[in-house]
Structure formats: C-alpha cells, structure tokens
C-alpha cells in the first residue's frame, strides 16, 4: 500500500495537505483543475519535492526523504520522456545502467522489451525519428525495465491525439494486468480517468475532497465532482 500520512507542503500561498492511501495494484486518477495541486502531489510522491510534515510510505517503509532514484517508483511525463541525442536502445537502457555500459545479456533484454511494446527493430533510431505514439512506447519500455511496483503518470495523454490516447490507454491497461502495478495518474480529463483507473481522487485547493471508486460515477456523480464538471 502507498500511504500519504498527513503530508503537507506550502508553496507561496498554495497549501497542500493530503491523507490518503492507494492499495497495492490499484489505479488512482488524481483529478482537479490546474492549480489544484496534482503536479505537486506527484512531485512529492516521486521525490522531487520533500514535504514539510507527514510521511510517504510504501508497504510500511518510509520513503519521505529518499532521493527519487531510490524509490520504488517510475514516472512518465506528458512529454520530455526521452533524451533526443540518444538512440531508443540507449534511452531504454538507462533503466538498467545510467552510464550505459550494457552487457550483451542486458542488450538482449532491451531488445525483447522493445518488441513487447511493438518497437522491434527500431532500437537504433533516435526519438526525433519516431512518431508520437512510438515515443510513448519507448518510454513505456524503459518503465518496464525499471521494474518498479509504482508508476506515476503526469498527464500522460495530454499531448496525444485521440487515436494515440486510446493506444496508450490500452498499453497501460495491458501492462497493469500483466505486472500487477500500482498507478497514480494526474489528469484533468474525467474520461481518461474512467478508461484507465479504478479510483478517483478529486483535488481542490490542495485537499482531496473526493475519494471513491470510478464505478457508477456517471450514474450518480457526487456534488463535489458535479461542481467541478
């Protein structure tokens, strides 16, 4: 279980305060208008920001002060997920060794993962030579090799057109089934939340004002959500 226990952070006039849990294997969509604290919350989970109070835990272990690389988490941004000067193989290989001194065995694993996400034979290309969808897949391949139980998704579909969106949702869902991952996804789009998550948190002015399953959301939208919609 991923726990946020009394986590607090002040940034200027903005004040975030969250108490919440994500059971292992759940997919939570963090919804909210811009400025509600979605990115801040993800940055706290990833370790780019350190809370002023409270604890962040995973399976009972305290992560609050761990540097980003030592957390059981990988992160996928809206864009900027790949280094433009490295090939796809190198970008993916960063998950195994950040200095890229890869063994043959590791190279084979990379190739295998690339074909898992449908990029077989494209390892020698650079991100600039890939389509938007292929870039997303390359980032996913790295995420797979990182093999961390929690995946943070920061507006992962915002820069994609509808076709690519569907494709990415499908890939993420397949991955989740296969590996029993835990997702925390920031989004401002309720449909993305419905398509790819089990639970939603609605964030307003730094507080979780709604925490409930996605199921039945449309039939009986709670007041907080209706106001926001």
């Amino acid at each position, binding site marked *: 279980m991923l726990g946020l226990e009394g986590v607090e952070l002040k940034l200027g006039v903005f004040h975030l305060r969250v108490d919440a849990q994500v059971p292992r294997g759940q997919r939570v969509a963090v919804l909210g208008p811009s400025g509600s604290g979605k990115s801040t919350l993800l940055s706290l989970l*990833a*370790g780019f920001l350190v809370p002023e109070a409270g604890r962040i835990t995973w399976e009972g272990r305290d992560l609050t002060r761990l540097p980003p690389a030592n957390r059981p988490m*990988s992160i996928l941004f809206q864009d900027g997920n790949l*280094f433009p000067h490295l090939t796809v193989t190198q970008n993916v290989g960063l998950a195994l060794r950040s*200095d890229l001194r890869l063994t043959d065995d590791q190279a084979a694993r990379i190739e295998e993962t690339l074909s898992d996400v449908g990029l077989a034979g494209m390892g020698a290309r650079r991100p600039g030579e890939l389509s938007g969808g292929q870039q997303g897949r390359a980032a996913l391949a790295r995420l797979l090799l990182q093999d961390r139980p929690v995946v943070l998704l920061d507006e992962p579909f915002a820069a994609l057109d509808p076709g690519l969106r569907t494709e990415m949702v499908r890939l993420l869902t397949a991955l989740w089934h296969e590996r029993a991952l835990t997702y925390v996804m920031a989004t401002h789009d309720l449909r993305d939340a419905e398509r790819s998550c089990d639970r939603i948190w609605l964030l307003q002015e730094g507080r979780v004002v709604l925490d409930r399953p996605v199921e039945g959301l449309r039939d009986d939208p709670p007041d907080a959500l209706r106001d926001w919609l």
Partner: protein
Amino acid sequence: MAWTGAALTALVLLAVLGPLLAVALAAEGPGRLGAADLAAIRFTLLQAALSALVSVLGAIPVARALARRRFAGRRLFVALMGAPFILPVIVAVLGLLAIFGRAGWLNAGLEAVGAGTISIYGLTGIVLAHAFLNLPLAVRLILQAWLSVPSERIRLAASLGFSDADMRRHFERPILRAVLPGAFMIIFLICTTSFAVALILGGGPRATTVELAIYQAFRFEFDLGRAALLGLIQAGICIAAGLIALTLMRGGDMGGGGLDRPPLDWPGDTQRGRVVDGLAITGAGAFLLLPLGAVLLEGSAAVFGMPALVWEAALRSILVALGSTALAVGLAVPVALFAARGRGWVETLAALSISVSPLVMGTGLFLILFPVADPVALALPVTGCVNALVALPFILRALIPEVRRAEATQGRLADALGLTGWARLRLAIFPRLRRPLGFGAGLAAAFSMGDLGVIALFSAPGAATLPMEMYRLMGSYRTDDAEGAAVLLMLLALGMFWMFDRGGRVDAGA
C-alpha cells in the same frame, strides 16, 4: 504606413551599403598590401580567435554554476552578466589597467613578493579585455541553452539515479556541443570589430588589428586609398564571420529572457561540484567587479577636479547620444512594422548588419563627405548617425517579435473593430511596444555614449566626445583625470540606459 516602412528600410540599407560602396570604389589594388598589412590581418584573426576561445571556455563553469545552484544574489549576478554590453569599452579597459596595468594592483602585489611584473599591452591585454567584455555574453548564451532543457528531463534523470558523470554525458556535453560553436563565432565577430580595445592596448608591428591600421592610415598618413583597401578587407572578414555566426546561431536567441528562473536540483551533485561552482562564481565575480570597483574607487574623488574640457565633452556626448537614440528609434519603429509582416529577410539583413564594422562605415562616410564638405566639422553628426545604425539591429531584434505578437493579438481585434491607420497603431500596436522600445532606446543611448570608434577618425581638438577626451587624457598620462572621466562616463551610459529602459516599463500595463 507600408510604404514609409519600405522607404526607410531602403534608406537604412543605403546608409549601410553606401559607405561600403564608397570604400570599395576608393580602395586601391591588393598589390599595395605590405607585410605590415598582412600582419594586421593575421593579428586580427588570431586575437579574435583567442579572445573568443578564452571567453567561451571561461564561461562554461560560470554558466554551469548558475544553471544548477541557488544562492543569495543569483539574480543580481545574472543581471551583472548583461552589464558589459552597455558599459563603455574604454571604461572597462581603464578598469583592467587599474588591476593588471603597469602600476596596477596585480603588479604591485607581484613586485612586493619579488615576482617581477607583467605587461597588459599587446596580445595578452587585448585578449584579457575581450574576455572581460564578452565572457558575460558567453555565460548568457550558454546559460540560456542550459535552462532551455525541459525540466521533465532533469527530473527523469533524478528518477533514473544519474551520477555526476551521467549528467555530464547526457546533459552538459550535448548542451555545450549545440551552443558553443555559435557563441564562439559571435564573440569572434565582435572581437574583429572592437576598435577601442585595439586602440588603447594594441599598436606596434606585433599588435595592430586591421581596424587600427585603417585608423593609422587615416590619421597619420592620410592615405585614403590604403585606408579604403584595409576597410574592404575588414568588411570581408566581418561579413564572412557574420555569415558563419548567423548560420550557427540559427534558432538561438541573443536577447534572452527568463535567465533568472530558479534552477532545479541538479541530480548527481557532489561535494566537488559544489566547490567548483563556488569557485567559478566568485572567480568570475571578482574578474568582472574588481576592475569596475577600481575605477570607481580611484575615480570618484577626481570627478570634481576635472578640467572644464571634460565637462564640455560630456555635454557633447549627451547631445550626440540623445540625437543618435532619436534617430535609431525613429528608424527602428517603421522598419520593425514593415519587417513584422512576414518579411523575414529584413530580420536576417538586420542581424547581418551587426557584422558591419562601424569604423569601415565611418571611413566610407568620410570618403563620401570629403569632396563636398569638411568631414571634421561634421564629426559629431556623423558619429551620431553611425552609432544609430550600429544600435539599429539590436533594437529591431527586441522590437520585431513584439510587433508580431501585438499584430497577432490586438492587431486582429483592431481589424475586427475596423480601426485603421494611425488610430490602429496608436491604440492597438504601440502600447505593446513600450518595453522593447524603452530597452532598445536605452541600448542605443548607452552605445552612443560610450562609443570610441568613428569619432577617433574624424575628431579635432575642441570637438571631442567624452570617451575621446578620456582617451586623450590617458594618452597624456593624466590618469587621475582619466579615471574621473571614466566614472562620469560610466554613470552617464548606465544612467541613460536605466532611464530609457525604466521609461518603457513604468505603467506599461501588459
């Protein structure tokens, strides 16, 4: 309005190309080039290359430190990196002399410990002065490239556990590879046309630049044919360097905004990195501030005892600077309005005109005026005109993007409301241009105030500008008066920039 813009653009082109043509027509055959001239060409290229190399290499650690450290005074430091651009060159050189010169602080220290003395004249001094003037520009260019790295990518590196070596490989080296060639070339170009530095610190068979040779052919030999030939060579060097710089800088932006964005935590940080960055910041700060501090320290007291000549020269300089600024702004607005309507070639030409040497322009104007009027009597107006043309590309650079933005937003609204002509400009476009205009006017005023180029070709005693008078004082070893004049000149140049720039900001609304 369109035809006014077109006509003025043509006029500017004529003003730049006319003198060049005059130089080309008056130039003698290349057969007249002696060994000394060839040496001048070699020296010009050598000092420019070395200056650019030193500036760029010195800037790397400073930019790196600014990109990844948060410290008190960081914003001030970044602002300081913009200052040498508007600092009169002769003030900078005097400051360097106060530190590194014959009787400077450094030599006093060296002598005290019996380590002999160093000389700042010649190649060493020229490269040192160019590094002082251009290291900050190099820092800005590199820092800008550094800060344009998407923050996601830096966070990605943090989450992948990048070490110091990984950061260098995946961030630092690609950034530097992309930005260094352009930065080197633009500084190389600036150093081929920095006449004042060569005038004060150069000279003699081993340290004469082409521009200095032009000046000497003019002033001492009055050999106009040879001066023109050298001018043609100088123009060739500049245009070649300018074309290369323009190609390498494509997509880059010289103006630079957002440099004070607070840096993210840099992954893979080490104790050694912190020490290196600290040394880079303090080292660069000392290198840039000590010379100015020395001028202020030694010159402030002398300001009040300066001869009347200096005050008269200061008044002349203020008038020339104001006239030059009015001309530059008066030309820039219509040209920018003209260029903003999809005429990218005007921008390219404007950028390229940075590479026209003011001294060559002055030579051409002299050649044009000489048969019909007394160029010496026209020294001040000619200086003002050339200063305005030199400032023009910088103003256009600030202005054109803002005109485009204004057209795209308020311009469309004005069209929809049926506003036309003067009313449209006054209500929809001009309000958006106040900031870049204030900034541009400030640049023009500071440039003109500190200029020691064309005026040296034309000037006669009794009609000198403040930098010229200061140069004379230095030449006659009246160091106290020269330092006093330097303080006055620095205050006037920076003060004028500040006033115009401020004028553009106050109540600017948007």
